């Protein structure tokens, strides 16, 4: 993640105060460690890194890089949870690849779980005495249109009141096959949350007791929170002018 590189030996006595990478890391080339998760590319006019072109006219593209999977052992209680989960999954006869990777970032731990294994992982997290994640804070969808083959992500936040810990589960599904198993059987509270995620992203939660739209009208076409959902512009009463949809306006993103 960090791209600072080695310590600069001359820094501290007479090094320039502004040019060092440590001083302004946003000018450093984006780290492209093969381990990091590239989930897309962003195009825009500003925010160039790693290229001399700051004019914005070069069609700037830069990869969107998410924090890389962390290596064992993790810090503090994160290691306890990961180890307990491994033991619980082995005990439940779940294949070893159920957890694809673990990211510890900003003190939060994320388990990237294969979607087939999600119900077993959720059940192990809830029932194992060393884990005891009793409360599920719901599921949130995220749509990464450039993350080919894993466009739709479903993100679950779990809370252990016994141990006072939180973990995050993340599963992915391709746009072509937007199915994720439901975990309503383990966490009844996620009923409406899964309906909302279906409504907003079109993620189909297999095994949900009544997967219908919840916020949008029943006959609504499309799933509004997807990044490819068409947004409306605003017609203006001046010589046929329009205000373009927000995703087509000039932006600094």
């Amino acid at each position, binding site marked *: 993640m960090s791209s600072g590189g080695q310590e600069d030996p001359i820094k501290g006595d007479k090094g320039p105060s502004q040019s060092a990478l440590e001083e302004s890391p946003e000018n450093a080339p984006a780290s492209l460690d093969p381990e990091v998760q590239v*989930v897309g590319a962003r195009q825009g006019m500003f925010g160039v890194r790693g290229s001399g072109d700051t004019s914005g006219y070069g069609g700037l593209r830069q990869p969107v890089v998410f*924090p890389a999977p962390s290596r064992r052992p993790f810090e503090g209680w994160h290691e306890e949870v990961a180890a307990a989960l491994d033991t619980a999954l082995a005990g439940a006869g779940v294949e070893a690849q159920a957890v694809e990777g673990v990211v510890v970032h900003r003190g939060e731990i994320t388990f990237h779980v294969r979607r087939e294994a999600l119900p077993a992982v959720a059940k192990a997290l809830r029932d194992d005495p060393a884990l005891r994640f009793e409360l599920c804070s719901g599921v949130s*969808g995220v749509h990464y249109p450039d993350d080919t083959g894993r466009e739709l992500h479903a993100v679950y936040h779990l809370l252990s009141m016994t141990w006072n810990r939180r973990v995050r589960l993340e599963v992915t599904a391709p746009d072509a096959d937007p199915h994720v198993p439901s975990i309503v059987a383990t966490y009844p509270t996620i009923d*409406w949350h899964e309906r909302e995620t279906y409504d907003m992203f079109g993620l189909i939660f297999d095994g949900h007791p009544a997967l219908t739209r*919840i*916020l949008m009208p029943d006959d609504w076409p499309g799933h509004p929170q997807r990044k490819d959902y068409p947004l409306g512009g605003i017609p203006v009463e001046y010589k046929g002018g329009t205000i373009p949809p927000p995703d087509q306006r000039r932006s600094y993103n």
Partner: protein
Amino acid sequence: MSTDQHADQQQDLYAGTNETTEGRVFTVTGQDWDTISQGVAEEADERVVVNMGPQHPSTHGVLRLILELEGETVTEARCGIGYLHTGIEKNMEYRSWVQGVTFCTRMDYLSPFFNEATYCLGVERLLDIEDQVPEKAQVMRVLLMELNRISSHLVAIATGGMEIGALTVMTIGFRERELVLDLFETITGLRMNHAFIRPGGVAQDLPPNAIGDLRDFTALMKKRLPEYAALCNANPIFKGRLEGVGHLDLEGCIALGLTGPVLRSTGYPWDLRKTQPYSGYEDYDFEVQTWDTSDSYGRFRVRLNEMWESLKIVEQATERLAGLEGAPVMIGDKKIAWPSQLAIGSDGMGNSLDHIRHIMGESMEALIHHFKLVTEGFRVPAGQAYVPVESPRGELGAHVVSDGGTRPFRAHFRDPSFTNLQATSVMSEGGMVSDIIVAIASIDPVMGGVDR
């Protein structure tokens, strides 16, 4: 349609019937229950499905209830929501990180500061500046959140009272809420939708008269809060309507994900302010309030007691603020801190002339920072964060995802009203129609938060 029915409809414009493929449908408004009672008597073996809301004064907002009745007993209850869906989460993806606050403050309109706080805490965690938020900003956040908890609980109790016919509870509840809103207006400039808590701190410093106003408020509330206890706690009608209604035990709460006063009314002292403190809550002296009856009456008493605890925190925060005069309220990092302070001018609140002189006449760097932050905004490192806070209704959290850009890639709010409303069926099935109103009022859902 037969001619008989046609004649009926002409006689009674407000209570017509018509045949559908699913049976006879009665349209009943106002007091015209004759037609429906007659019709039900004719079809005694049929189930009656009553649609209550979404425009109904007792459903606590635009909540639609679909009730299956047997006599006056509810056999099945389902909620229809989405009438207040405004796409706030989607809108936030097309605005800068700071502008996101302006959107999310409008979700749960009775607890705007909690929406802002959980979002800003998430953004601050992604920026890795959690430790750099100045002390005064933290204290002001706590102060505003606790004042907001008082005003939100007052509305919960007031509207809950109104819905069962206790109008005095409503009038005094809104009378005291007005005092809190006046304080909000003094401190933030607005009574609702403040957009005051920003990533990195808060928008403005305390105005000079705020400390005095806060001290007057706590003194007054100490006289006023006992009135609620005197009016309701042992009131036989109030207790008769609330006790044993909307029962949900600890196991049910955990399974259905209920948090906040509903969870604490089962006797389980789970409060994120104590268990996972944020914004410096560990420095304040207060108790987690619980009750042991798991019913609507318990939830009422928990809310009443929590207002006392909030008042304790407000007092402590006021004293700390009195000693922090002139301290910064925004992070020192000029690449994140919102640059402009507002000032009161002859034509109302507007740009601070001192700030304009500084950027236009004194510092080119300040001008650049101002321009970059206002047009482009700051960039947030890629990643995701979830920092929940204890809102008046339970665990409120924002799942904030950044792709490294100047706008949220995704912001999803786990709203406690949305989650808690799922308990409507289990709290009200088997009870009377009138008890549904009490059960829902005890959950205290705010539809702006449910539908977002």
